[in-house]
Structure formats: C-alpha cells, structure tokens
C-alpha cells in the first residue's frame, strides 16, 4: 500500500473513532454524555417509594401530572449540597410566585439513606427552609439506591474524610415520568424554563 493511502486510512479511522466516542465532538466528559443522552432518549424513571422528612411518603415519578425536580444530596455534606440547597430554595420560590405550586414538586433525595434518617432529613430541610409543601427532603429504600443512582447517572465516591463527592445536578422529570433534562445546580433559570416546557 502506498504511504499516503495508509496514512489517509488511519486518519479516517481515527477521526471516525473519535467522532463516535465523543457524540460528534459534543461530549468529552461522562457528565456531558449523560446530559446529551437524557435529552435524546428521555429514559423512564422506574417507580419507587421515598420516605420524606416528615415521615410520609412520596413516589417517584409523581404519577399525578406534576413535574419533579430532583437533586441528590447527603445531609452531612459541607460543600456543594449547601449551595444546591440554596438553589432549591430559590427554585421553590420561583415556582410559587409563577403559580405553578400545584404542578411541580422539588425533592432533595439522600444517597446516604443509612445515615440520613428522618430526623436528619428534617434537620436538613429546616436548615434550608424546605417546609414540605412544594419542596421536601426524602430518602429511598437502601435496596433501591443503586438502581436510582444508575437511572439518574449519579456517581458517588467517598472523599476519604467520611463524606462523598458526587456529580450534583438538577434532574427534571416530566409529568410523563421520564427524565428529560439534567442541569447544573446553579442553573435556576434553565430549570424553570425546562420545567415549563414539560408542563401542559
């Protein structure tokens, strides 16, 4: 084979491989790929029960025509979950003033359900101003946790100091029970817009 033809063949194969591996250069990170895939596929969220901070129950997905905005947290988190909690409070206020309180619910879900019992959840809710009407704090059954994290593409790794690092995000589940959008926790405007698009 001629040298130029061999080089061309290698270059074509290489560019094709990189193109496929990055979704057409759109996603270089796992997080970027997960967000693209969710917009494209809108995966169904499997029905699961959550225990809330007042001892009651919520179901995932809501199943009653409401959209759900979900963030994963652990209540002893000192850093990113605190800013995420602040963002959830702002979101709650936005939906309340927009008159969407009956069409939307906000859930902060613990991925550390063994440690985060109901009093811990309640204390986190109190610290961040979640009163349970639009926004509540909840935990899944520990048995359901791996599947939930997998569905939402959440990776949790121990930080070596008794805490965790995780890819925090706002996860928007539509009234149809599908996960439609994943946004940065600070992106309040984006979350409101994405939710409005999913509501009838």
């Amino acid at each position, binding site marked *: 084979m001629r040298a130029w033809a061999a080089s061309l063949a290698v270059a074509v194969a290489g560019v094709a491989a990189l193109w496929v*591996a990055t979704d057409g250069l759109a*996603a270089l990170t*796992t997080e970027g790929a997960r967000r693209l895939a969710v917009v494209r596929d809108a995966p169904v969220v499997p029905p699961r029960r959550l225990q809330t901070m007042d001892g009651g129950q919520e179901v995932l997905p809501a199943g009653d025509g409401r959209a759900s905005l979900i963030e994963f947290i652990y209540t002893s988190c000192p850093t990113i979950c605190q800013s995420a909690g602040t963002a959830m409070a702002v979101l709650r206020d936005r939906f309340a003033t927009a008159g969407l309180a009956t069409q939307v619910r906000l859930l902060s879900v613990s991925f550390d359900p063994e440690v985060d019992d109901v009093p811990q959840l309640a204390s986190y809710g109190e610290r961040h101003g979640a009163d349970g009407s639009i926004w509540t704090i909840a935990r899944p059954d520990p048995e359901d946790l791996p599947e939930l994290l997998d569905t939402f593409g959440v*990776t949790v790794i121990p930080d070596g100091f008794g805490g965790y690092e995780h890819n925090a995000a706002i996860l928007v589940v539509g009234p149809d029970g599908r996960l439609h959008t994943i946004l940065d926790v600070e992106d309040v405007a984006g979350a409101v817009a994405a939710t409005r698009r999913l509501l009838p």
Partner: protein
Amino acid sequence: MTAWRILAAAVLIGAGVALRGPLEAHPVTHMLVQMPGLALAGALLASPAIGSGEWNRGGVAALLAAVFTATFWMLPRSIDAAVSGPLVDAAKFATLPLLAGLPLAAGWRRAHPLLRGFLKAQALSMLGILAFLYTHAPVRICNAYLAEDQFRLGIGFLAVAVALAVLWTVPLLVGEAPRPAAGMPTGSG
C-alpha cells in the same frame, strides 16, 4: 525480537492487569503509571519487521495511529468508562500496547528528525495544556475521581512535561555541539 523484550512487555501488561484495582483508584497512577506502562509494553513488542513496509514511509501512518489512540484515551469519558466498565478496561489493555505503544515505536524509528521534533514539541504543549486544565478546572472532569486527585493529576502532567523538556533539551546543551546540516553555511569560511 529478543526474548527479554517479550518478557518485559508481558510483565508490564500483567502488572497493569493484576494491580488494576489500586492503580485505577487514583487518576495519577491510572494515567501516569498504568497507561504509559501499557504503551511501553507495546513499544517493546515492535520488532524491526513491523512497520518496515512502504505503507509506513517516514513512519507517518504508524505515528498517526499512535496519536489517535492516545487522543482517545485522553478523553475524560474514556477514563471514566475504563474505571466503571470491565469491557472498556479490557479494550484499554489491548489498544494501548497494540495501537499506541507499538505503532509509536514502529513510526518513530522511521520518522524524519523534523517530524520527531514536531511531535516532541506537541507532546510538551499538550502536557502543559492538560496540566493547566486539571489544576484550574472549576468542575470535576472525571466522575470517577475526587477533585483534589484531579488537581494532583494536573501537577503530575506538569512534572512529566518538565522532565521531558529537560530530557530532550539537555543533550543539545552539553557535549558535542550539533553539526550543521549539509549545505548550510558553516560560518568558518
């Protein structure tokens, strides 16, 4: 090919597989120990016959293969996928030796000195960019690794860049002065 090369390559790949858990637990050992070790294993397997054909004139085709493979394994997505999926990790153990290290060696020995210099300069600037990216990124680039380990990896890239720069430039500064190429004015006339 001498037996010791095959043996050394087998030891490198075997160690990479056997110590997979601890090596991949930290990004510094994953990307700066295990992965270069796998590429080195491939380079050891590059017997003189490999890449000696007309298709590899100037080493260009082989070097292109090595560059594309290295680029693929530089993607944060690929690293995350290797940590979380045994299949992807198996692909890494196969492709880094056979499609990165081996063609790098098979291309390098036929490459013109200008091409070698170009690739060295590119490698240094790429390592510098990676060092800056991993020490300054405001978000975690790999979901599988901690933010502070990401910072350490950036420092690691910087250390490798400095080490290679020293390794490649010191020979130019000490010992015999490089002879000017034929046809160049020598300045002695």
